[in-house]
């Protein structure tokens, strides 16, 4: 790789190629190597979190408690969420940012390479702590498992054993990691763009990450503060959240959702950025409404910061407060509607072909629209006080986050795999994966809307026979959805190991600096800045 000559006629990495052996990875300051590590970490966590989902659906296949203790079930519910959010989606998006941003904006590497290394290894430490929080309850004196759900609401989270302390430190480590990565991304985007690349000429994926990075820096401290107060309540006799000591259990909910709601957009925006890169490529025409797409992303991030309490309509807020949160939440449909509209208008009158990344992009438009629309139903308070904490909510947020975040990352994986590895992936297997995901995903989550409306609360280990049919259907769908990921794993491994050589441009309609570099690109992306007109 070190002897590769780029199309720009300069030699790359001639003074030092990648170090050999474990040092290359442990001490890496290279954006591609760190990006790869992020992506591998995310894939491992995805499979782990997915395996937990399989256990959950296996337990819920029939009424009755067949496989596990209720608290272990609750622990699975908790850690499935945390692993998917903090272990799979965020690291995968960060890995793609690491790989692609310098290449997209014409930089040699990220602006702060050593910090890049640190943020990745903090992430690994956090991941280990997260897994340990599940393991400690099995050790002598380990206390009870975390049975609170990922929201960690006190007073329940104060009752939990030391596994909760592991989780609190997990959140601290992951928070540090996210903030460091965000600083790096902002500095890179602000300072390392090629000459002539103004902000409004930047690829939309870079914009999506710029907004995401600012969101992360604003919200992570709120969560870190909340769990620190929880730690103090648990061990040092404070009463931040203990009503008997003058504290307020609802305060935690506000702090949590001040983080938790913008977090949804943290998960969503990078994937929307990826979709906005993919559709123009496969429709062979420019993104419709570049300016309004940027504007919509910034607006989503801004309004998203101000509507957190729509997760807490049932706690007993004043009429004025809930009205504000309802109207604010409904208004988010405006920028999100604009995003979806721009995607459709980009397809409109294009010359489309349907390779795997484009299949995912089209599916995202349709399924995420549906997830967003049920979000409007939930924003409306009279409806929400029925739907709240029922399976309707479970269906809604999986329809928002799987198409909105996860499928976008799958699309990005297939879109960029040839660039990363220099090999084309197996298109037939890619399409097989896509269709398995479509059938499995919809079969899993669509019936859950009905379950919620019929009265099934979420996070229950056992249910009445009246909910059996839809739960069985949902479980069968989930097993198919899970099995699809074995195909994904196989496609990725096969592509890394070999395959037809990819051209520099890879896709006929691809535009942008990253496609001017060879596939795979040189160790240092652009050692001489390209000129952008």
């Amino acid at each position, binding site marked *: 790789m070190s002897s590769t000559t780029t199309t720009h006629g300069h030699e790359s990495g001639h003074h030092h190629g990648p170090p050999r052996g474990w040092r290359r990875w442990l001490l890496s300051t290279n954006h591609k190597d760190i990006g790869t590590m992020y992506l591998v970490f995310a894939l491992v966590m995805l499979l782990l979190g997915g395996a937990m989902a399989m256990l959950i659906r296996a337990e819920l296949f*029939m*009424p009755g408690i067949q496989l596990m203790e209720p*608290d*272990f079930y*609750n622990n699975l519910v908790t850690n499935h969420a945390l692993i998917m959010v903090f272990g799979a989606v965020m690291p995968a998006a960060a890995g793609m940012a690491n790989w692609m941003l310098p290449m997209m904006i014409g930089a040699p590497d990220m602006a702060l390479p050593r910090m890049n290394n640190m943020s990745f290894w903090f992430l690994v430490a956090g991941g280990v702590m997260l897994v340990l929080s599940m393991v400690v309850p099995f050790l002598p*004196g380990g*206390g*009870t498992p975390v*049975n609170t759900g990922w929201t960690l609401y006190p*007073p329940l989270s104060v*009752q939990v*054993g030391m596994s909760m302390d592991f989780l609190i430190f997990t959140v601290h480590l992951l928070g540090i990691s996210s903030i460091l990565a965000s600083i790096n991304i902002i500095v890179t985007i602000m300072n390392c763009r090629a000459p002539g690349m103004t902000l409004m000429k930047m690829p939309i994926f870079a914009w999506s990450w710029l907004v995401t990075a600012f969101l992360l820096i604003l919200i992570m401290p709120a969560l870190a503060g909340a769990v620190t107060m929880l730690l103090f309540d648990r061990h040092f006799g404070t009463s931040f959240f203990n009503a*008997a000591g003058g504290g307020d*259990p609802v305060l935690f909910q506000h702090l949590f959702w001040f983080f938790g709601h913008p977090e949804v957009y943290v998960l969503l925006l990078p994937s929307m950025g990826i979709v906005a890169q993919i559709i123009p490529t496969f*429709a*062979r025409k*420019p993104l419709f*409404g570049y*300016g309004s797409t940027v504007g919509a992303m910034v607006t989503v991030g801004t309004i998203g910061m101000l509507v957190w309490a729509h997760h807490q309509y*049932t*706690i*007993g807020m004043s009429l004025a407060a*809930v009205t504000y949160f*309802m*109207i604010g939440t*409904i*208004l988010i*449909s*405006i920028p999100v*509607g*604009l995003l*979806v509209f*721009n995607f*459709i*208008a980009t*397809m409109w*009158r*294009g*010359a489309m*072909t349907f390779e795997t990344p484009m299949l995912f992009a089209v599916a995202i438009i*349709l399924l995420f629209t549906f997830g967003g*629309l*049920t979000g409007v*139903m939930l924003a409306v308070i*009279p*409806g929400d006080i*029925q739907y*709240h904490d*029922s399976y309707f909510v479970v269906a809604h947020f999986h329809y928002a986050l799987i198409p909105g975040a996860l499928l976008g990352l799958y699309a990005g994986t297939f879109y960029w795999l040839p660039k990363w590895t220099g090999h084309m992936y197996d298109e037939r297997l890619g399409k097989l994966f896509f269709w398995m995901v479509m059938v499995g995903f919809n079969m899993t989550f669509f019936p859950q809307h*009905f379950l919620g*409306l*019929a*009265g099934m609360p*979420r996070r229950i280990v*056992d*249910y*009445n*026979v*009246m909910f059996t049919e*839809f739960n069985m259907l949902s479980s069968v769908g989930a097993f198919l959805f899970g099995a699809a990921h074995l195909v994904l794993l196989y496609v990725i491994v096969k592509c890394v190991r070999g395959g037809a050589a990819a051209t520099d441009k890879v896709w006929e309609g691809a535009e942008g600096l990253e496609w001017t570099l060879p596939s795979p690109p040189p160790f240092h992306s652009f050692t001489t800045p390209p000129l952008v007109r």
Partner: protein
Amino acid sequence: MCSLDPCRQGAGRAAVATMLLTGYSAARAELGYNLPEPASLGARDIYDIHHLTTTVVAVLLAIVVGVVGYSLYTHRKSRGFVADQNLHKGRFGRWSWVLIPVVVLGVDMTIAGKAEQVLESLWEVPKDKEMMEVKVTGHQWWWEYEYLDQGIRVESRYTPEEQSRDLYLREVDNRLVLPTHTRIRFLHTSADVNHAFWVPEIGFKKDAIAGYITETWTVLDREGVYRGQCAELCGTWHARMPIVVEAVSAERFSAWVEEQKLKMAAATAEASSDKVRSKEELMEMGRNLYNKNCAACHQLDGKGLPPAFPPLIAGSAFSGGESMTRPLEERGFLKDGKIVLGPVEKHLDIVINGIPGTSMQAWKQLNDLEIAAIVTYERNAFGNDSGDVIQPPDVGKARGAGVTASAQ
């Protein structure tokens, strides 16, 4: 984790198998896929809003699917379609960023306007109207209903599958009986962790939060039995907190109130009589009370669910967090990692006042006879053959001591 759970659902699985064999219809009347038919005025408004938003969602989704479907079919390279490179530069391209938000805002305001009207009447409890008041308290894992005007208190727990059969997890021992066509104000709170009161037919959901008392109100307008469940994750047995509301006519409600009052009076008289109880009598009564009140955590066989809930069997090993082990050691119930039978006074103290800072709650609402029976049972069952017999007056004395000793 695949341990044998005492609550394996043999009958549940049999019911499912039957349903599969008979094609569902025999086992149950209909498949629930929408909100159930409302039974209160507020729930009817909510039902209408639900249908409005569902319709809007369906129409918008149909439009998006239609447009995308047309484009997918028409604008393909394989059909020889050449991309229109100037679509975004035309007038539509330049002004769509105004047009789309205006259209979406129009839809939003339609929905929000309707919702706002309903919201006000749901949210604000009428101040000037006569209301019947019911205080609803969530406990781990049962509901307590206090009829503040009638002076009645009802404890409501799930009934085990052997008794509830097909209604398992949707049936309770004591229902929340309410009169129809009466304004009812609910006061919601919790004794421990967060819970949430939810009966879809009544329409609303409200969290029960310790330290908070929140209010909701309703007017039930049709008689019937309405079932709901706790809707906020509250720990191990969150799934076992059903809520069953029985809406009856005002006359039947008055009759029910009288009946409850008589029962309570009889129980109080019984408990405060000076009669000396035999061990057999106390054991029999204690077993029933223990199974109802204590077995959720300490289990029917007294083995507990370590490390959260300690076993009650002397000699069994127990280790857990210090917040649990220390109070047990101080009270003389744990020595060298083994459970021991501590002094009777401390045993009474734990049951009456609970152990602050742990999930062991205070049971002072039980009467002297009931507590005497439970403690007698615990000290003689599960192989704890101490021979101790506790009489109701002993509990009365312990209560007095407890009041001065505890902070409350």
